[in-house]
Each structure stands twice: as C-alpha cells, then as structure tokens.
C-alpha cells in the first residue's frame, strides 16, 4: 500500500478524517517551504499538498496565482520542488506529499524522468490539474509504475457517466472540487456536496477529499462530516501573504491547528 493509502487506513481505524493543507513551493521564500511543511505536520496535517509554481495557472484564482508569481520570482522550478521534498523527507518519512501543478513543467522534464526523480525525492502522489483521464493514459501508467499515486479531480459538472472513468485512472484519493470556479472562490453548499459525494462513492472506492471554499474550523468541520479528507489552499496562502515579516510560520501554525480542531470536531 502507498503512503497515502496507509495514511487513510490509519485515520479510518481511529475514526478520523484527513486534513490536507496546500502551500505553493517557494512562497514566500525559497528557504521557507521545508520549515512550513514541518509546521503543517506539527499543527495537524495528515497529507501535504505542495504546489509546483507555473507561469500560467489557468485553474487558479488570484490568491494562488500570486503565490505562484512570488515563487517564480524566487526562481523556484520543478527541480527545486523535488529537492525541497527530499529535504523534508530527511526528518519526516511518514507524511505523504502530493505535488499539485500543471502539465507543462512535468512534460518538459519528461514523464518518465520526472516520475523517477519524484519517487526518489519521496513524493507520493501527483495531481496535474490540466491532464484529465482522457489525456492521461501514458502518464498515469508511468506514475503508477513508479509507485506514485495519480490524483484526479471531480467537479460539480462531472456527469455520473464519467465518474467511473476518472476513478479507474486514479490512485490514492479522489479530489472533489466542491465549487464551480477557480481556487479561492466563495461559499460552499455542503448539502449539495453531500448528495454529489454519495453518487461518487457508488462508482469509486478510493477515499474522497473535498476542497475549494474551506476557510475556517466551521467549514472544515462541515466538510469533514461528509468527506474523507478536507483540502485547504487559498485560505492558508492568504495567511502567508498577509503575515507580517517573521510571523508567517506562526500564523500558518495557528490557522492549521484551528482547521484541525474543526476536522476533529466532526468525528466526535
């Protein structure tokens, strides 16, 4: 079983849900990412989603776009992200790391070369936002052959007929994007999401994470009641963006601890 599979199994045994925070590698500074990753774990993260900066983050809202721009200004590319993961792995061998990004940096490195390097660095899963299952035939196989879980998205616009196809290509967990729109969009309707998740579960045995629009303990709790994992991105990036000089790590720690309390409240 992969590290992601083991993590979900262990949580299930303890009747707990997973918290998956997202940060963009290289934001706010190149040297900040590994310390931030450790702090995320300390504050209660079960899996870390690490954003790979890209010049044209088409599916992201302004908050994550700006994080990507800051990271690129800090000259952080895919190779640096792999190096950061390897650095993190020196002292943490249990928390899964999922890279999330766009196809082109991976395509440019070459899928095979990337998969090898990612596995060696200690990466567990890869979500390439703009590679749907239809285009992923070669890609997912390469990832799987190297023991990387290919993570895929489902959205409110995904018809039931497609869910099975997406699930078949996926590994690790399925990421249900709870809103139409880009990352960082507003409100989320948990009842609507719950209905959709019931449908998803009919076709998919993987754990289901829900993301987009989770910003505090209350929304984290509401989502944890219906999903296997709670994914939080823009809210954490905003905290990084607005924290005064030197306060960033502390602020993120507090926020993630609060989200953790929300997630745990759901299983009480």
């Amino acid at each position, binding site marked *: 079983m992969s590290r992601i599979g083991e993590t979900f199994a262990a949580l299930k045994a303890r009747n707990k849900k997973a918290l998956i925070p997202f940060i963009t590698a290289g934001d706010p500074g190149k040297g900040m990412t590994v310390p931030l990753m450790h702090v995320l774990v300390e504050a209660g993260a079960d899996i870390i989603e690490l954003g790979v*900066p*890209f*010049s*044209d*983050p*088409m*599916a*992201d*809202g*302004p908050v994550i*776009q700006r994080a990507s*721009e800051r990271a*690129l200004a800090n000259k952080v*590319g*895919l*190779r640096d992200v792999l190096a950061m993961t390897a650095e993190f792995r020196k002292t943490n061998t249990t928390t899964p790391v999922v890279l999330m990004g*766009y*196809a*082109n*940096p*991976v*395509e*440019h*490195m070459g899928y095979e070369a990337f998969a090898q390097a990612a596995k060696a660095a200690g990466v567990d899963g890869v979500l390439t*936002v*703009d*590679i*749907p299952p*239809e*285009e992923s035939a070669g890609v997912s196989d390469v990832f799987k052959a190297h023991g990387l879980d290919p993570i*895929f*998205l*489902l*959205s*409110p*616009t*995904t*018809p039931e007929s*497609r869910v099975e196809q*997406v699930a078949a290509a996926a590994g690790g967990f399925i990421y249900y*994007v709870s809103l*139409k*729109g*880009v990352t960082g*969009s507003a409100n989320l309707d948990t009842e609507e999401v719950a209905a959709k998740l019931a449908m998803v579960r009919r076709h998919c045995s993987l754990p289901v994470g829900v993301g987009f629009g989770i910003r505090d303990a209350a929304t984290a709790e509401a989502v944890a009641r219906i999903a296997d994992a709670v994914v939080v991105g823009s809210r954490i990036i905003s905290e990084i963006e607005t924290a005064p000089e030197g306060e960033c790590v502390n602020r993120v720690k507090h926020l993630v601890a609060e989200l953790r309390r929300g997630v745990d409240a759901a299983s009480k």
Partner: protein
Amino acid sequence: MKLTDLPDSRGHFGPYGGIFVAETLMAALEELRVEYDKARNDPAFMAEFEYELKHYVGRPSPVYHAKRLSEQYGGAQIYLKREDLNHTGAHKINNTIGQALLARRRGKKRVIAETGAGQHGVASATVAARYGMECVVYMGAEDVARQSPNVFRMKLLGATVVPVSSGSKTLKDALNEAMRDWVTNVESTFYILGTAAGPHPYPMLVRDFQCVIGRECIMQMPELTGRQPDAVIACVGGGSNAIGIFHPYIPYEDVRLIGVEAGGSGIASGKHAAPLSAGTPGVLHGFRSYLMQDENGQIIETHSISAGLDYPGVGPEHSYLKDAGRAEYVAINDDEAMAAFHDLCRFEGIIPALESSHAVAQAKKLAPTLKKDQIILVNLSGRGDKDINTVAKVSGITL
C-alpha cells in the same frame, strides 16, 4: 490517413492538440463538441452562417492584384486576399459569427472572449450586439494601452472590457482569465475563443469557420489568373487566418504554404513570438503544441510590435503541418513588418494591420526569388486603422 482528415475524435493532430483542461471544463467542452457536430450537419445552421457571412460581413472578400507592389518587389505577382475589407476589419468576424450562432443554439445569453490586438474582441462585441447577448472581453493591460481605438470600439458596441494585469499582461494572460471566467460561469456562458487554438473542439471549429477564406481563393484565383498560386503566405498568431487559407489548399500539393511568425527584435535576441521557428512542444491553454518556454517548462514572455501575434503558443494543426512538412514557417522581425506596412500604404493605398504586414514582408523576401509569371497569394488578414498609434510612436510622431 489524409492530412485533411484531422483532428481525430478526441482532437488530436498527431501528437498535438487534445483536451488539457481542469475537470470543471470537461463537460462544457463535450457539450460544445456534440453541439458543433449537430450544427455542421444541420443545413439550416450552415445556411444561416453563409447568409450572415454574405449580408453582414460582406463576403466574399475580393482577391486583388497588387501590381505596383509586385513591380516594386521585383519578381512574382502578388495578390492580396482582402480580409481587411470584412465588416469590423479583419478575418476574426468569420469565426465569431459561427460561434455566436452556436451560443444561440445552446441558449447562452452571455459570451466572453479574450483578445490581443482587439480585433477578436471587437468582432465578439459586434456579434453579441447583433444577436442580443451580454459580452465581456478580457484583454491584457499592455494591449489595452497599445490598442486603445479598439477598446473604445468594444465599449461603443456595448461590451465590458476587463484589463488583465497578471503575468505578461498580454494575450496569453487574457486567455487565462477568460478560461477562469468560463470555469466559474460555465452554465450561463459561451466562450468565443478567438483563434484556432485551445482545447478540442476549438481548433477544429475555428478552422472550419475560417476555411471560407481559402475556399473562396480556390474559386477566385483561377478566375483572375487562370490557375492556383505558387505560394500562399499568412501571418501566424494563434493561427486562425493562416489555417483558414491553408487548409483548403492542403490537397493542392504544388502550392507552397508559408506561415509567418513574429520575429520581434530577431530570433537570436530571444525577444520574439515565434514558437514554430524557435520553440519546443509543450502543453498550454488546453492543448499540446510548439511553445516558447524556458528550461523549467515555464512559459516565457513574448515580444512583437503586433499585439495579435504576441502569443507564446500556436494552434496545434500548424505544429502538425510543420512536422509533416506540408507548411513552412518563418519569422519576420518588427522592422521588416514596419517597412512592409509602409510599402502597402504608399504603393497600393491600403493600410494593413501590423499582423498582416508580417505576411507582406515575407512576400517581399520571396517575390524576387521567383519569376515574373509566378504568383504569391498573401492573406491580408486585417486593416491597420487600429495600429496607427503604434506606427506613429515607432516613427517618433505624436498624434
């Protein structure tokens, strides 16, 4: 398989094209594919499209023998396909009419578009007014500044113009923003994509709507000259005017097809917008094609005097035609395009778009290498009224 049979059912032109988008858009693209498939087999739809092209756009556009320019350039005879004479002043309207009719079939009341030079934005605002739809146009902040006449035209037509300040503030960023809008409003909104690029089925349907250009030429050239041309030249931004004139000519194997990219300050300078001449394959904006990218796979900023060519990617069919050897792609620098711009003004009384001036500049290079009875057909994709501020600035003149 014939070159003209592409793309395959999933939008692939060999290794290029495809559908590389986030899950949220997959259903909308599938819906568009199905709807377009029905529409193009629906005689009523095609009849309305042709009616609009004739009575609203003013087609067919003429082919014109540029005699004085040919004499000046000293060699082959140069003919111009006058897309500049279309309503709104460029080829872009052929495509926006087709897509607006599709939007209406789908019952969508809101359309969005990205624009570089503003020609596609104007053409989208025009059809939105014509069919009574709300229109939002995304435009890079830098392009808003250098194409101000077109910004005003869009506003006159009732469209909302949203300046985009992310990234390089040009066409690629406008496209990112339009995609984000579409992801958010996918149920109410039709995205009128402005060039033969993007995820399937856009490259195919934009091509099909623009092929009217080449089909008319195939009728017009024999009437004027007794035969088909020796070479067809078109500028390539995303590639819609070029594929529109090239595609019908693909089976005519004796006709050379030459696409002209923006060489900016020169390929060697790195400041250009010529992915086919100097890029490598990659994935951007929903499709695989030649791209301008750095060693980390990040998209690099492009440079061109012409906003409509200032794009780091190119429609997938051009990548395919390049690899297959059926079309050739060259780059023309800013200064060469400017010189050709002035040539056409002075020798023919036609003010061309700076985009189209790149194609004219290539004719200037090619003509002297050919005989006097050989024929070059240049797609004059648009008129240059929108560019007079840029040209004045380059010439050191304040208007």
